[in-house]
């Protein structure tokens, strides 16, 4: 292994600009003549707009223009499109209400867009927005998914009676019911997967610009996938052909899913920039992010797990209600179906699985994929019910899992819910984690803690997830309206340095380093001679972007394939220069040599010959050395692992302290261990956040109660510990690089480990359930309700 090749913890190439304040985020961009946009938003969860009067606002100082939904409708613009179509069990397509960028006469969630004010300064735009007069007729609202289907519930859409978006099933219900009926024991669980707000640290922003002389539009935006935004916004909303529309996603300050989607503000500033013929900048304030960024999770589930007398799983039945919010966001319908229910076998040999998912509309911000997307919900459900089953069966947590794991030699493994896991070793991961976490010493630690008056518990989560999205043929058959391949372009310059163009987007993941390592390793050139370009539709041929842990598993392979083409062409040039047969040319360590001889040419000599082709096989070969590859995987990527969490609870305060967190994950083949560990750290922190701290709360009227960092508890440094990480890597046979995704596993695997630890700590009190987040008041209350009252009470 070279110091900069595959497997080395190369320090990141992108760091220098971020460490010195030279990053270039969307809000850092200022265009000549730029104006500022402020968007007037609904303070009501549900209301009819009876009157909208912008006349006083239009006359306010600095105002250039004010646009409303009627102006957009007059230009016959489209609504924000949804990229997936799900069909209900009766064969009917999901209900897909229109989603105009600015509403016409009704608002459906707090934060819904009503009008945009464009002014010389942001202050003037805000001041003018105060002068817009809106008469609302408030209507009853529904926020909680568990109540949305009730017959008396307020209705979000006339075309979606009962607030039902779709009623979807997978598996054979009758078969599963029969297995449950005949089982030795059935464990039942009811749980909620708490609604979360992604809160990437950089608030969303967009700068739209129009050039009247060419008819070209440019949008700078905080996106994880600029080409997807260009396609969705250009083709469906603004009707601008691709060659007239450039979308740039420069440095982006975190995404976690929330910056995948095409948002109204992008369309508004792009469209309006032509109307006012000046660039327009919009930047969300954090309060605005809370009420406009797509939220995550928000499931209510009941499930049954049937077992035989030895604890062998026989069948698993799941009934879930999933909140879509008021509109369907870009990926929303696929999250609680194909990214959730297809994972319900988990790492176990459960032969029969059935799931019914009812997606519902509510008067809340749209819900879409947030780090893990569907897979955390599946893992939380499975690992909670398995842990509860172990307690009910009187079996050790590790032992019940061992009895049900898919064994390493059983891979590739066809699950009863559509997926074929290509590889894995759940048992191997768990055994390694048990050693690292000193599981055998746990009871002694529990006693020691008890002597100090603390409840100590240990929680398990053994998981698998499907990522590297996605095989186009597979997702197409599942309802995706587009394929999910990736594009990589490798441009070798005359003197042998390389620029890589990738359709993925880095917003913290370190692609500029990892992809450069791929190139340095394969082409044998110094990593300093490799530059990675992403995030600009004018530079990169095409791309589907970064989400679903796909960048390396899909995008990395595309780059690898493009390098194969470069090497193949370079070998032809080398054969000519070395006067040898092409079949005799060997490429190794950056040199082309004739097999069995000392005759060779350096990589840079070949590239120079390609661009200065005086001595060149010009009749057979074009000059130049640049290749493009599109890679569409045949299967998902299946990372998995075992997470063990140890907590201590203070019964006097209800505070849960994470003491140790151990994760052993299977990433196939690791390119940069330092970056991969960093991805796990961040994911685990978000998972612990979900389990102990974070909750997006709406009140009965649909008002967001947790609308700022004062109310929504983000994990902070003193809520967390240093994590204990290791890997147990089984190379992925279905991936040409052998790699598996690593970006989401932390958020997928960790929440049940934490909650299972809390329940384990409290189990001596007879407590069997604590919902997420396990906040101090909730835990304290559970302890008070469970233990006998003190003598004085």
């Amino acid at each position: 292994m070279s110091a900069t090749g595959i497997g080395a913890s190369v320090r990141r190439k992108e760091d220098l600009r971020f460490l010195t304040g030279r990053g270039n985020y969307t809000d850092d961009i200022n265009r000549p003549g730029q104006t500022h946009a402020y968007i007037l938003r609904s303070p009501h969860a549900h209301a009819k707009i009876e009157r909208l009067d912008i006349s006083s606002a239009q006359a306010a100082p600095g105002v250039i223009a004010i646009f409303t939904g009627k102006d957009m409708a007059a230009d016959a613009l489209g609504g924000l499109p949804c990229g997936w179509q799900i069909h209900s069990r009766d064969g009917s397509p999901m209900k897909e209400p229109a989603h105009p960028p600015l509403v016409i006469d009704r608002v459906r969630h707090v934060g819904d867009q009503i009008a945009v004010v464009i002014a010389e300064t942001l202050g003037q735009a805000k001041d003018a927005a105060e002068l817009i007069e809106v008469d609302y007729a408030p209507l009853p609202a529904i926020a909680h998914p568990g109540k949305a289907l009730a017959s008396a519930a307020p209705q979000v859409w006339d075309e979606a009676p009962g607030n039902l978006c779709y009623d979807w099933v997978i598996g054979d219900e009758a078969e599963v019911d029969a297995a449950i009926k005949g089982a030795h024991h059935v464990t039942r669980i009811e749980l909620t997967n708490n609604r979360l707000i992604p809160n990437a640290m950089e608030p969303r922003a967009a700068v739209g610009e129009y050039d009247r002389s060419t008819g070209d539009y440019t949008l700078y935006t905080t996106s994880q996938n600029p080409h997807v935004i260009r396609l969705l916004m250009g083709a469906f909303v603004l009707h601008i052909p691709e060659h007239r529309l450039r979308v740039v996603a420069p440095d982006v300050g975190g995404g976690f899913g929330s910056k995948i989607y095409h948002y109204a503000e992008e369309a508004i500033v792009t469209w309006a920039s032509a109307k006012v013929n000046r660039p327009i900048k919009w930047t969300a304030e954090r309060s605005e992010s809370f009420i406009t960024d797509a939220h995550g999770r928000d499931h209510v589930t009941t499930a049954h797990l049937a077992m035989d007398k030895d604890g062998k799983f026989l069948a698993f039945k799941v009934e879930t209600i999933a909140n879509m919010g008021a509109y369907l966001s870009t990926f929303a319908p696929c999250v609680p179906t194909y990214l959730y229910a297809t994972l319900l076998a988990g790492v176990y040999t459960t032969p029969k699985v059935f799931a019914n998912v009812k997606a519902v509309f509510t008067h809340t911000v749209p819900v879409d994929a947030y780090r893990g997307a569907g897979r955390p919900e599946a893992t939380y459900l499975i690992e909670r019910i398995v842990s509860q089953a172990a307690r009910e069966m009187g079996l050790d947590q590790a032992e019940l899992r061992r009895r049900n794991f898919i064994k390493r030699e059983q891979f590739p493994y066809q699950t009863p819910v559509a997926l074929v896991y290509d590889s894995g070793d759940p048992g191997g991961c768990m055994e390694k984690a048990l050693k690292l976490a000193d599981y055998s010493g746990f009871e002694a630690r529990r006693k020691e803690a008890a002597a100090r008056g603390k409840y100590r518990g240990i929680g398990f989560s053994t998981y698998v997830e499907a990522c590297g999205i996605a095989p186009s043929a597979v997702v197409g058959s599942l309802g995706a309206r587009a394929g999910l391949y990736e594009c990589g372009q490798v441009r070798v310059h005359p003197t042998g340095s390389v620029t890589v163009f990738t359709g993925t987007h880095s917003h913290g993941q370190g692609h500029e380093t990892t992809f450069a390592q791929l190139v340095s390793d394969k082409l044998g050139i110094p990593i300093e001679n490799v530059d990675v370009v992403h995030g600009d539709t004018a530079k990169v041929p095409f791309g589907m972007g970064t989400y679903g842990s796909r960048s390396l598993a899909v995008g990395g392979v595309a780059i690898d394939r493009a390098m194969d083409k470069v090497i193949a062409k370079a070998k032809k040039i080398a054969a000519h220069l070395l006067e040898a047969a092409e079949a005799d040319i060997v490429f190794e360590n950056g040199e082309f040599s004739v097999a069995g001889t000392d005759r060779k040419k350096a990589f840079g000599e070949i590239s120079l010959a390609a661009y200065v082709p005086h001595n060149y096989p010009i009749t057979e070969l074009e000059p130049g050395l640049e290749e493009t590859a599109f890679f569409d995987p045949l299967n998902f990527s299946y990372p998995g692992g075992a997470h063990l969490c140890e907590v201590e609870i203070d019964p006097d305060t209800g505070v849960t302290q994470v003491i140790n967190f151990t994760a052993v994950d299977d990433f196939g083949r690791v390119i940069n261990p330092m970056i991969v560990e960093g991805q796990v750290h961040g994911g685990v922190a978000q998972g612990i956040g979900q389990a102990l701290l974070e909750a997006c709360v709406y009140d009965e009227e649909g008002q967001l109660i947790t609308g700022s960092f004062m109310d929504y508890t983000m994990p902070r440094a003193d809520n967390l510990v240093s994590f204990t990480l290791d890997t147990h890597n089984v190379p992925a046979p279905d991936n040409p690089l052998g790699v598996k995704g690593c970006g989401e596993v932390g958020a997928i695997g960790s929440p049940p480990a934490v909650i299972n630890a809390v329940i384990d700590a409290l189990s001596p009190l007879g407590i069997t359930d604590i919902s997420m987040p396990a906040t101090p008041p909730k835990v304290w209350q559970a302890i008070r309700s469970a233990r006998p009252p003190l003598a004085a009470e």
Partner: protein
Amino acid sequence: MTISVSMTVNGKTVSGDVEGRTLLVQFLREQLHLTGTHVGCDTSQCGACVVHVDGQSVKSCTILAAQANGTEVVTIEGLADGATLHPMQEAFREHHGLQCGFCTPGMLATGYDIVRRLPDADEARIRRELSGNICRCTGYHNIVKAIKAGAEKMSAA
């Protein structure tokens, strides 16, 4: 009504006309084009905007530009010594203490401030001292490591 302000920013005297409501961070970003200082929230919680004002770490979204009149301000752009990174910047790079980079300017300013005040702070203390800075990417694991390492480098320097 505008107010004239003048201050030293990264060693250079600067001045400008601001509104009464203009925050220091707005003055830095919008008038001086020092966009390394970031705005991550509107409730003074996230710490992405931390700069040093007269040697104290300050959330530049919590003070008005007018209040900073006559002070000496150091932003992320002024932390390195020319092409030589500050030991804390080096430590963040070495220990992968940043991912998306958005919270990084505030983390560096706070990390530097922690070490200056508490050169021997242990992990628990560093974590407590960091509670005014939010990072969504790193889980703080490598930030804490970097600040510890930065402390050693700074004391050795």
